[in-house]
């Protein structure tokens, strides 16, 4: 019923979510949420105003009225003791809801306090409460309740109080997960550096994060408490002197054959209440998750704004001496490529448009730009591996005479790996942590090249040695988390070239690496590219990397190429304002600041003189 995984992701989601006020507003505009809230309000109101809604007493038995059908006197009939069913239902709501609320309150108080203390201060209290949680969750709640009522006798309040204790891990785990996540957040560190004490940090930064998920969890716990309470009473182990939904169910079950409707009323009440509580929780979770996924949407919106950009001619530089030396055949010709994402409302948001480029065998073509410029989208579209909802909306991707934009998925599978290969940015997340490095290298070779397991293993070991891994056999047998980031990136490069591709697409292949490792990986890529005579598309934001390895460069902004040409032409004679601004922002060749002058104020003049060219480009112009 309570799973830690969901709890953690919930905690995570809420952390990134907006403030509480806007969340409650959104709950009222969410149709499911609104229906659930209205129905729950009706149930509660009918319980509160029960004496106004019926003139019967819920406990007055009448032999004369036993199992009376629906009539004016008994709108919902009468039960096996002749008590009015409607009155019992309405007054029963009072007891059932109050009992569940008691369980909820107890579990929330224990769970939230314990979670805050264990999560924030940790140490022995942490281990102790983890142990207790494990103990509480080891036994089914109903078994514990049965055991308790065997010694304590039937008391609804007592059993709901005990159930509250049993359910406290639901809150404990949630709060604990939130607190440990928040505690390591930079903004909590910043608050501490700002001079905030622990209690203020908990109140301001942690409780605000826990609030919404705790309400969700509360709705779930309330539903479970209602169900378990009804279950106990249905078994005949409840307090039969007070009207509750569960005792009505018990009564109805006994008379099931003679008056089946008596089973319907309490069932409907329990069912509606539980479903509404779950729907409420789900709607709230949806709203939380929606607000937490904002960043990616923002990125897309930024990109779709790009599509509205005026079509402007691409600054094209002619080939120079160096670029004319590359004489390999043309591998790839992308023409007027556009990439779009389908939006829920049916329209398409365009993230890349009018992109044209070519790659020759033996050539490295750099795609350079800032975040959101569409360079990675372009790379993925060539592989036809765009995320869900993304597709090529215009243009052609001609590779060895075939337009990849229109080719079937089956045909694309034969091209990927064997003809066009891919090196990703983040080495660790691009290896499957559940399989050994070796099996992840062998599997594609067996599928794409049809090698036997033995052949593929030999080839994988040779490749690992080629990419500079000191002990290929050990790395082959290792799991990804057992190797360093630099090693993992070499493994990914080995995987990319394992099926002898003609074109390599490298998406920021060194961005996640340290500079010394980056230099080694660039050397490796250069060596492999020359050795296997591949064409290569290199996506990067780093002009140093471009200068190091690229023969040709295309500068991208807002989903379009603004300038393209041989690498030296771009660095020496940039024509587009944007390219000039980017090159101007590079600090490489700027002067060092020099030692601190004795008087701090005298710095002002020389510092202004030393500021780089970037100073005269406004930030707005670059966006």
């Amino acid at each position, binding site marked *: *019923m*309570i*799973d*830690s*995984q969901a709890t953690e992701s919930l905690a995570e989601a809420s952390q990134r979510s907006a403030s509480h006020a806007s969340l409650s507003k959104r709950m009222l505009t969410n149709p499911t949420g609104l229906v659930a809230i209205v129905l729950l309000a009706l149930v509660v109101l009918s319980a509160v105003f029960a004496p106004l809604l019926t003139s019967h007493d819920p406990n007055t038995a009448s032999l004369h009225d036993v199992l009376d059908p629906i009539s004016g006197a008994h709108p919902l009939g009468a039960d096996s003791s002749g008590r009015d069913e409607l009155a019992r239902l309405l007054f029963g709501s009072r007891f059932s809801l109050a009992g569940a609320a008691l369980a909820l309150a107890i579990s929330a108080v224990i769970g939230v306090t314990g979670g805050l203390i264990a999560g924030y201060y940790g140490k022995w209290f942490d281990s102790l409460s983890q142990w207790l949680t*494990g*103990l509480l*969750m*080891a*036994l*089914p*709640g*109903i*078994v514990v309740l*049965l*055991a*308790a009522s*065997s*010694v304590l006798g039937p008391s609804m309040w007592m059993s709901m109080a005990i159930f509250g204790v049993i359910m406290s891990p639901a809150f404990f785990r949630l709060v604990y997960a939130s607190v440990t996540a928040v505690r390591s957040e930079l903004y909590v560190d910043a608050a501490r550096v700002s001079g905030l004490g622990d209690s203020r940090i908990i109140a301001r930064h942690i409780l605000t994060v826990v609030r919404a998920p705790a309400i969700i969890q509360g709705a779930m716990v309330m539903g479970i408490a*209602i169900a378990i309470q*009804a*279950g106990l009473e*249905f*078994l*005949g*182990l409840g307090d039969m002197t007070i009207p509750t939904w569960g005792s009505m169910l018990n009564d109805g079950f006994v008379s*099931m054959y003679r008056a089946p409707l008596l*089973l319907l009323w309490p*069932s409907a009440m*329990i*069912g509606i209440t*539980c*479903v509404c509580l*779950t*729907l409420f929780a789900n709607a709230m979770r949806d709203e939380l998750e929606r607000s937490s996924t904002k960043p990616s949407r923002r990125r897309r919106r930024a990109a779709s704004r790009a599509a509205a950009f005026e079509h402007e001619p691409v600054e094209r530089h002619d080939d120079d001496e160096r670029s004319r030396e590359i004489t390999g055949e043309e591998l790839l010709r992308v023409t007027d490529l556009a990439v779009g994402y389908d939006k829920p409302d049916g329209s398409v948001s365009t993230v890349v448009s009018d992109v044209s480029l070519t790659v020759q065998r033996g050539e490295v073509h750099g795609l350079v730009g800032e975040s959101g410029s569409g360079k990675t989208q372009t790379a*993925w579209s060539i*592989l036809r*591996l765009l995320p*869900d909802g993304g597709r090529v909306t215009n243009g052609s991707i001609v590779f060895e005479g075939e337009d990849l934009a229109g080719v079937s*998925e089956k045909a694309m*599978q*034969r*091209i990927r*790996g*064997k003809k066009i*290969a*891919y090196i*990703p940015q983040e080495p660790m*997340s*691009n290896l*499957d*942590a*559940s*399989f050994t490095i070796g099996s*992840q290298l062998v*599997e*594609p070779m067996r599928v794409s090249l049809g090698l036997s397991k033995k052949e593929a293993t030999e080839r994988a070991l040779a490749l690992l040695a080629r990419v500079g891994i000191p002990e290929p056999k050990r790395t082959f047998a290792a*799991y990804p988390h057992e190797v360093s980031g630099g090693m993992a990136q070499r493994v990914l490069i080995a995987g990319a070239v*394992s*099926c002898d591709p003609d074109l390599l697409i490298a998406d920021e292949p060194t961005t996640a690496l340290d500079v010394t490792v980056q230099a080694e990986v660039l050397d490796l890529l250069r060596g492999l590219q020359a050795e296997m005579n591949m064409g290569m598309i290199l996506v990067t934001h780093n002009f140093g990397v471009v200068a190091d390895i690229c023969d040709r460069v295309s500068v991208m902004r807002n989903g379009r190429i603004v300038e393209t040409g041989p690498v030296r032409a771009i660095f020496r004679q940039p024509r587009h304002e944007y390219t000039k601004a980017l090159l101007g922002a590079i600090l490489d060749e700027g002067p060092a600041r020099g030692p601190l002058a004795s008087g701090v104020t005298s710095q002002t003049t020389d510092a202004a003189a030393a500021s780089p060219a970037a100073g005269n480009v406004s930030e707005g112009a670059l966006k």
Partner: protein
Amino acid sequence: MIKFIVRRLISGAVLLFLISTISYVLLYLGGGDIARRILGQTATAQTVADKAHVLGLDRPLFVQYSDWLSHALSGNLGESWFTGQPVTIAITSRVAVTLSLVLGATLLTAVISIALGVWAAVRRGWVDRVVQFISVLGFAVPGFLIALGLVIVFALNLRWFKPTGYVNLTDSFPGWLATVTLPVIALAVGGIAGVAQQVRGSVIDALRQDYVRTLRSRGLSQNRVVFKHVLRNAGGPALAVLSLQFVGLLGGAVIVEQIFAIPGLGQVAVTATSQGDIPLVMGLVLATAIIVVIVNLVIDLLQGWLNPKVRLS
């Protein structure tokens, strides 16, 4: 791997010890004047004192407990106060019935929820929405309401199944199947809903991982990646939920057995509880705890097999 198993076994044993101690203390201390409760209000003070002496209730609690524990370790959990039947026999004669229900429901839950979850995660669109909707309903409606609904529709109205009773698996397989089908479905619905949601969520998460794109970039098909890599990575969280569901199912069985008049542990539990038969209640708590510990051990082993990080740490 052996170290891993041994560690789990030890922590399971510690858990059992703790549960038995705590429940013994609470049950025997909380029970008040036990001899009086057994004999009723009409008995004289002398007969009550004699009864207490016979049961050993006049000794200090610690002595009583160590006595109980040493017997328990040799498999003797005492006798029922009301029927005089040994607790061990009362439980072992019923445990198979309950386990067949609960394990059947767990199996059904695992198969259907994985299928539904993967289907919803991979296809998305309307399939996803329908599965989501059914999951919410199945999760929200208490299991015993579903059981009542099944009885009324399939047993009383359609007459496809008998509403009550139980046939032993060893006596007649079709008979057994006919009697357990409805209870197993009633038990499984909630679990299916919960686990399917979890499977769907973790498959969607796993599909978004970078390595999926990288593996596909080497020429593997989407299906191959889903069934080999994604499912294995989504398996861990799904198993965790399944183990929680199992604990829930054991509890749910108590009520479902009552509705379908199945002679399992649940029936014993309800009778023992209403009579205040403490040795029997104690035995039931212990039996449940043992089952839970064993199932958790199995799940832990499966987790270790799925996820190398768990195994190696």
